[in-house]
């Protein structure tokens, strides 16, 4: 199968529900062996987009293509999909093994194949010794791993994850990231819907910024950062006290924009450390009570802020 035919594509997807466009001409594509982070605030349309890809959301216009086929009403096309919902979508009273077997069967595996894949998956996520424990009694991290494994038992071509690390401690989160990298290594195309910028920076090959049902920017991190900042870096100015209206105006003319924190302002900075010194002096001369000035390599956080005009809330 050619690379294009194996792609997951969403083309100009539109859908209005109760007069509000949850998808407003959304387009993106997921390549095999790549992780695309779908980044956006709550209510941006991430879950709707995931549902559209699963063929469960009727589109007013546009289309979804899974390896060239429409998943809506095509069970065979949907077999190429694995879904890891945000919730622990498992039967709490079934054991880890039983859950994997049930989910494998529901994903279309034969009972023999489901048993075999469940055993393999238990080894993969390091839960062999808890295979016969009821899911209810597993730790949060274990449940997350099991939730992930249940979505890939049938070796789908594409994996959709909806906020897979919500409420997970850093260690468990890192472990999940390792699993995702491994799946990418096996050639799986992964769409990771998240509002966690750090997660996107850490494991995504490409990022799509979804705001109000529309992809506002997409590309690799480098591409997005370059488009937003050029060669500039990101300047973070922290004031000793909230600025007066005049001070706000002055900060604006310096190319800085406010954040959710009234005392913290950010913007691009060119000219490296010399530029930083010059800018700092100008702000002080303007009578602003600057407590701290920092410089960092521009990242997704800055890109998001520049494009959307507000911080992505954790």
């Amino acid at each position, binding site marked *: 199968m050619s690379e294009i035919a194996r792609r997951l594509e969403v083309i100009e997807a539109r859908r209005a529900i109760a007069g509000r466009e949850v998808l407003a001409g959304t387009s993106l594509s997921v390549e095999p062996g790549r992780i695309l982070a779908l980044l956006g605030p709550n209510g941006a349309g991430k879950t709707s987009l995931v549902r559209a890809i699963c063929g*469960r*959301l009727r589109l007013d216009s546009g289309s979804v293509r899974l390896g060239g086929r429409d998943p809506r009403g095509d069970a065979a096309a949907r077999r190429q999909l694995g879904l*890891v919902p*945000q919730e622990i979508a*498992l039967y709490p*009273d079934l054991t880890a093994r039983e859950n994997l077997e049930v989910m494998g069967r529901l994903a279309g595996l034969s009972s023999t194949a489901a048993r075999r894949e469940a055993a393999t998956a238990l080894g993969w996520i390091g839960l062999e010794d808890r295979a016969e424990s009821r899911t209810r009694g597993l730790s949060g991290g274990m449940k997350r791993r099991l939730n992930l494994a249940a979505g890939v038992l049938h070796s789908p071509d594409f994996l959709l994850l909806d906020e897979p690390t919500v409420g997970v401690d850093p260690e468990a989160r890192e472990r999940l990231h390792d699993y995702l990298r491994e799946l990418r290594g096996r050639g799986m195309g992964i769409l990771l819907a998240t509002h966690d910028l750090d997660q996107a920076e850490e494991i995504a090959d490409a990022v799509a910024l979804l705001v109000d049902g529309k992809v506002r920017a997409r590309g690799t991190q480098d591409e997005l950062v370059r488009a937003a900042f050029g060669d500039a870096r990101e300047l973070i100015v922290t004031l000793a006290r909230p600025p007066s209206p005049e001070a706000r105006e002055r900060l604006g003319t310096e190319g800085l924009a406010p954040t959710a924190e009234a005392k913290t302002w950010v913007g691009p900075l060119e000219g490296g450390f010399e530029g930083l010194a010059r800018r700092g002096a100008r702000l002080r001369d303007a009578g602003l009570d600057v407590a701290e000035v920092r410089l960092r390599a521009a990242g997704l956080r800055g890109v998001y802020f520049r494009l959307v005009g507000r911080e992505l809330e954790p």
Partner: protein
Amino acid sequence: MSRVVFRAMWLTLARDRSAIAMSVLLPIAFFLVFASIFAGTAGEHLRVRIAYADEVDSEESRRLLAALRREAALEPAAEVTLSSERVRELVRSGAADAGLIVRAEAEPLGSVGGFGAPPLLLVTDPTRAVAARLVAGLAQKAYFAWLPDVALGGVVELIDLDFTELDPEQKEEIRRELQRLRLETLEAAREGSERSGDFQELVEIAEVERPARGRNHVAYYAGAVAILFLLFSAVHGALSMLEERDSGILDRVLAGPAGAKALVDGKYLFLTAQGFVQVSLIFLVAWLAHDVDLPGHVAGFALVTLAAAAAAAGLALALTSACSTARQAQTLANVAILITSAIGGSMVPRFFMPQWVQDLGWATPTTWALEGYTRVFWRGEPLSSLALPVTMLLVAAALGWGVARRAARRWESL
């Protein structure tokens, strides 16, 4: 795919002790309590507490009250005869179910064709109307059985006055015969022997269509409790569909090749099987503890039970899949089940209800299931007689299943 949903349902139930208790032990306990509480409502064990007053205090009135005191269905509220006022008080306070006063200002006992008030006054409470009817009947019976001389004496007097005048010799002979009757009843009372009386007994009581063995009302309540809990457990199980929607399992399932139909079908089969086992256990206990003839009616029982379990499963799935939240479904289901069970006869036999409610009952699966069990256990009818009730239950099952499958489709496509 339906099979695997069935298996997940089974494992979840097997591991949820409260759900097992809810669907198996609770109905059995309920049935045993129901069977003993309602066993008496047919009346065969009914005992009426009664207080007596005797304003006349004649030999006849004393004999009548003594005869009533010997009646097994009447339990004297006091050992002695009381004043009329006291009798009214006891009835008013509920200490006695009924009071019987032999009145002074009335026709005397034995009077025939008089214009005054009847000699006996029965004081009662409107909530115990059945007790009054029972006492009235027993008083009539005691009068004819134990005071035949008084009753006949009155009749003779009436014949003498209104029909044909008796000559002194005939009157003397009748007087002697009545005296002999009087002594005979006094003798019988002293010996405590049974007396049906000199009058031909008017009524004999026999039960209709009594089965070869077993007790009818227990079979009825086994069915009544079984259907009630069948509906409750079916809803409890069907609610898992909404839980699966909330927990993301539904999202996961629908993202794959399986549709919502597979989920509905798997649950439908499981809930039908669960219901069949549940009802069977109740009838098993009814057989062991109350002698209901289950082994003699296995085929009929199985047929009705399978159809009833399928109907309960279908209706429960239809109801839950049409609701948007578990809380909404639970509330709606509780109301629907209680109304259905009340109208359908799970709580009180339907013949106690007004005709229009009885007619309404035919719209409930409860009534059809109970009708099926009645035909099997009470009337001992052949299997062919189950065609109508079983068909009606299967129609309900198919309708519910169809509605549930249709309603679940809205989750497939948003």
